[in-house]
């Protein structure tokens, strides 16, 4: 009788396993079905062995699913930098600077990837200090196929490392939107290297690292940043503003017309960014689970609502909804939903997106003109502004039912009645702004002394493609 009940339990348990295990299931089931083969063996030992095996297989099945999604997500996030951002920015510059701006994004795919493997990953995710990590994972020591339970307990540590690497790659590339058409390549390489160590690595550790003082689980100011509103967008956007102010305007700005040379390229780039962002936000669930679905939906709705918001503002103001406006709005919405994606329900995601579309339109068209800074491709107006409004609205709209990050039953954001979370978000925003401001000023001074930051006037007029890289994007005679 007892054995029959156990057999039933086994059969049910095995039926719940992933289809990939069907092959192993057959012999297990047949040995249970024929008790004669196990007549003399110790029944309880056999049961324990089977349970352990089952447990192992369930873990393996979950890891297989999560790992597949996380590897795809890592690739999607890389696609955001190249070709996504490279095309988006590449189309917005004048034709003589096309390759230079694309190369600035591509250079990060090389440079930051290597720095990340050498020490960057360890500085961001090693140790448990409040401000920065340590060197315990330098040269990827101890980063293998066994999961790191501190961050992602179901996927290989290597997967978590490479996924986070792609975030580190795109963040400095975003800054090049503000310095476009006048920044030296040597200066870019030095600036980005220093910026990665002084701004990105510490901020990533503070917000996401174990023991970080802005970490949502256990930090001094528990700051909700699901996929990098603070770490990626505020940091790069505010640094972009500092760079634009420090460098000054492009020659001829704002009198000389500088329209985008190919909105077709920008359009393709923006659409690739939108798709890649699913890896960025839904991947930040670090598993192929319900939270990933929730973040995926919020991301899409945020982008859609923001595209509508920006377009409506333009339609109202200029009488026409432009393609550039629609894609700029979508990117602004993706930025703003980034910190919120894994904390909010679909309807608040629409509100966040719509607000971001309108707010970033206002920042890019009005505020920039009012102050007269030359943020060439609006890295601050979209990423700095969108990241800030997104971080604050995350505090208002986060729900325990979506992501009980403070523990089961504990309120998360304003909609749960925990309005002081908006204050925590503000603390995170201010610290990110402060670090980006101070860090960037220091780095700019160093870069200016060592390599110089801005090209000569002659080079700027001739174009960066020829003067920085010795080639042209469009060679008409060939």
């Amino acid at each position: 009788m007892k054995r029959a009940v156990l057999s039933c339990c086994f059969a049910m348990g095995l039926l719940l396993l992933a289809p990939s295990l069907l092959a192993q299931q057959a012999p297990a089931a047949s040995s249970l079905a024929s008790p004669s083969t196990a007549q003399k063996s110790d029944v309880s030992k056999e049961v324990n062995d089977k349970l352990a095996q089952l447990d192992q297989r369930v873990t393996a099945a979950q890891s297989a699913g999560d790992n597949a999604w996380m590897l795809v997500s890592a690739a999607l996030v890389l696609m955001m930098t190249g070709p996504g951002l490279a095309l988006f920015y590449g189309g917005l510059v004048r034709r003589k600077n096309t390759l230079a701006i694309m190369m600035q994004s591509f250079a990060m795919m090389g440079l930051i990837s290597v720095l990340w493997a050498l020490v960057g990953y360890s500085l961001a995710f090693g140790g448990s200090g409040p401000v920065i990590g340590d060197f315990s994972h330098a040269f990827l020591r101890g980063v293998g196929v066994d999961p790191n339970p501190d961050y992602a307990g179901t996927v290989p540590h290597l997967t978590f490392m490479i996924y986070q690497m792609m975030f580190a790659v795109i963040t400095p590339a975003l800054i090049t939107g503000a310095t476009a058409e006048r920044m030296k390549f040597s200066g870019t390489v030095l600036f980005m290297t220093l910026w990665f160590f002084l701004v990105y690595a510490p901020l990533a550790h503070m917000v996401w690292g174990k023991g970080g003082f802005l970490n949502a689980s256990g930090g001094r100011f528990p700051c909700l940043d699901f996929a990098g509103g603070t770490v990626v967008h505020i940091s790069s956007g505010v640094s972009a503003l500092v760079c634009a102010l420090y460098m000054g305007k492009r020659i001829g700005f704002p009198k000389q017309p500088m329209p985008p040379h190919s909105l077709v390229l920008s359009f393709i780039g923006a659409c690739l960014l939108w798709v890649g962002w699913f890896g960025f936000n839904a991947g930040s669930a670090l598993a192929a689970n319900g939270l990933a679905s929730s973040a995926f939906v919020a991301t899409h709705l945020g982008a859609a609502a923001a595209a509508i918001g920006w377009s409506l503002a333009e339609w109202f103001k200029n009488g026409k909804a432009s393609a550039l406006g629609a894609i700029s709005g979508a990117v602004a919405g993706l930025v703003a939903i980034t910190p919120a994606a894994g904390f909010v329900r679909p309807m608040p995601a629409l509100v966040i997106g719509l607000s971001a579309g309108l707010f970033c339109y206002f920042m890019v068209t009005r505020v920039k003109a009012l102050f007269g800074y030359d943020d060439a491709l609006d890295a601050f107006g979209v990423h700095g502004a969108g990241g800030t409004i997104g971080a604050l609205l995350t505090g208002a709209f986060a729900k325990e039912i979506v992501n009980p990050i403070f523990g089961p039953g504990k309120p998360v954001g304003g909609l749960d009645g925990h309005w002081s979370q908006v204050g925590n978000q503000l603390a995170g925003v201010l610290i990110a702004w402060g670090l980006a401001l101070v860090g960037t000023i220091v780095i700019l001074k160093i870069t200016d002394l060592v390599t110089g930051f801005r090209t000569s006037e002659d080079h700027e007029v001739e174009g960066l493609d020829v003067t920085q890289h010795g080639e042209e994007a469009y060679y008409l005679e060939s």
Partner: protein
Amino acid sequence: MMKLEAIIQPSRFESVKDALREVGIEGMTVTEVRGHGRQKGHTEVYRGREYTVDLLPKIKLEMVLPDKLVNTVVDTILKTAKTGKIGDGKIFLSRVDEAIRIRNEERGESAL
């Protein structure tokens, strides 16, 4: 021999070309050009920055014609390139002293 240069609306080019073929014109040189006469340009807005685009795309036809064909060609272009709106373009005629076919060094109207 006369040289005819006509600046026309790009949207009319295909009709002009077909009509010219019907009256027996065998050769022409066509360039995409930008310019403006009395026609005003339009405004484009990129992220709130307004640009006035006053050089507009046009098509420039060039052909050298034997004297007896000039009137027919001018009439044909006038008829087919006209939309009646400002910006339809202009026709310029000038005398040509000599024409030489590079292949066999033929000269004069027979080189056309």
